[in-house]
């Protein structure tokens, strides 16, 4: 066993032990699927967009991954406050390995959460194309790793949970709402289109949509390329910030 593996395993164990958290974090995606899916469905169809549930489900799957990933990254703050972080920081293990173990663990959990939302959306009426499912999982993994690493980076700068609200309100929510998860990218006002185009989640949503229902806006290769690059950057950023932690 090595350090990366045992820290990965720790994240997994903590996740599966808090059933309340698993169920609780399904509430929001379910609400979005039902309220938006059924609420906007008729208008969307009338406007010629096709079945809205088909359009929406990949966006909500991305949302499930996004929230769980950021939250997993932010757990660094808990570990700071409850003291466990010190235990890992004095160990003869590089900061990079610690960060990687935590991030991969958090990302695994986020992917699992994405799978749960996927299953939930099937119940609501989502009918995906399954031939590219493995590629969809790659997209899910990239979204998960990107945002867990980003959460870790931000949490490394903060000392208590009050910062968490700031991150949720000023980063996670805008990232989600301006990603094309809820609305098509075609014909947006230029400002919104520009923001969506620099939003990494847009490429994740687009990739999931392209693989699960078809019709990627940017194209699957663009999605994959951009998402891979930003994921590497966010791991680098995350491990740099993590290495700066002093407790």
């Amino acid at each position, binding site marked *: 066993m090595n350090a990366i593996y045992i820290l990965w395993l720790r994240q997994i164990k903590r996740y599966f032990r808090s059933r309340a958290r698993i169920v609780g974090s399904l509430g929001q995606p379910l609400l979005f699927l039902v309220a938006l899916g059924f609420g906007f469905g008729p208008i969307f169809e009338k406007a010629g967009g096709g079945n809205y549930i088909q359009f929406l489900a990949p966006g909500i799957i991305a949302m499930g991954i996004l929230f769980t990933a950021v939250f997993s990254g932010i757990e660094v703050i808990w570990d700071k406050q*409850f003291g466990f972080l010190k*235990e890992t920081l004095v160990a003869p293990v590089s900061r990079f390995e610690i960060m990687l173990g935590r991030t991969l663990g958090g990302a695994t959990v986020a992917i699992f959460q994405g799978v749960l939302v996927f299953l939930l959306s099937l119940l609501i009426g989502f009918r995906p194309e399954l031939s590219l499912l493995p590629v969809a999982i790659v997209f899910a993994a990239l979204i998960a790793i990107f945002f867990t690493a980003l959460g870790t980076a931000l949490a490394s700068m903060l000392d208590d949970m009050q*910062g968490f609200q700031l991150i949720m309100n000023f980063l996670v929510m805008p990232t989600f709402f301006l990603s094309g998860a809820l609305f098509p990218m075609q014909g947006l006002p230029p400002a919104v289109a520009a923001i969506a185009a620099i939003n990494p989640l847009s490429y994740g949503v687009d990739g999931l949509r392209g693989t699960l229902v078809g019709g990627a806006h940017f194209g699957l290769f663009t999605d994959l390329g951009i998402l891979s690059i930003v994921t590497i950057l966010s791991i680098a950023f995350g491990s740099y910030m993590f290495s700066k932690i*002093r*407790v």
Partner: protein
Amino acid sequence: MFSIEVKNLTKKFGQFTAVDNISFTVKKGSIFAFLGPNGAGKTTTIKMLTTLMDQTSGEMLLNGFNPRTQSNEVRKTFGIVFQDPSVDDELTAYENMEIHGVLYKVPNSILKPRIEQLMKFVELWDRKDELVRNFSGGMKRRLEIARGFLHHPKILFLDEPTLGLDPQTRNHVWNYIKKLNQEEETTVFFTTHYMAEAEKSATEIAIIDKGKIIIQGTPDELVKKTGSENLEDAFIAITGHEIREEEANSVDGMRLQRRMWTRK
């Protein structure tokens, strides 16, 4: 041969000087007591020695390595029991031990039997699969101590290791520390507020107050120098009678607020 060498070490938090230009050495294989009233700067010193915090100025060497520039070598040489909790209480006691063993690369063949031996020693073996969250304060403390002993480091930092333990367990733990010290030549650097512990176990003592080391020597020397009956009287004679209120919770809360955006 010194395990720890500290020269002109200073730590400032903004305007406030927590550790003020201290110098000392700890001989290999000794049991060194670092004593002082609340807020004297003991934990801050330990944090700098154990790579958790950067000094403002001054030099340190642990087994010849610099904690700042050779942190990985330094981390290989020491083990620590923190003053504050540092176990993961959403894991079981056994899992906490296991993670520690893996992080410190204790070979598998040694790890399992040693975890069992140590957990029996602190009488937690029959509760090894329980979440630490459900443990009492003393049980958590015993787990922290057992974990600190797991990888047999060359230097062992113990920041008030016996805080909150009953007298039986305290004795028990000290016997183990002495055994490690004798059998493996482990250098022990500890802080405590139980003067009897320091008097009984330490081969050398340094007393720090308001960030400065005031006096240093063997327990006997300190008692003699101050003309006291025992170490407790000597300690009070040296550090005065006033009560330090450093640990007040409101202060801690404010410190947290202040630190939220300003990383140090």
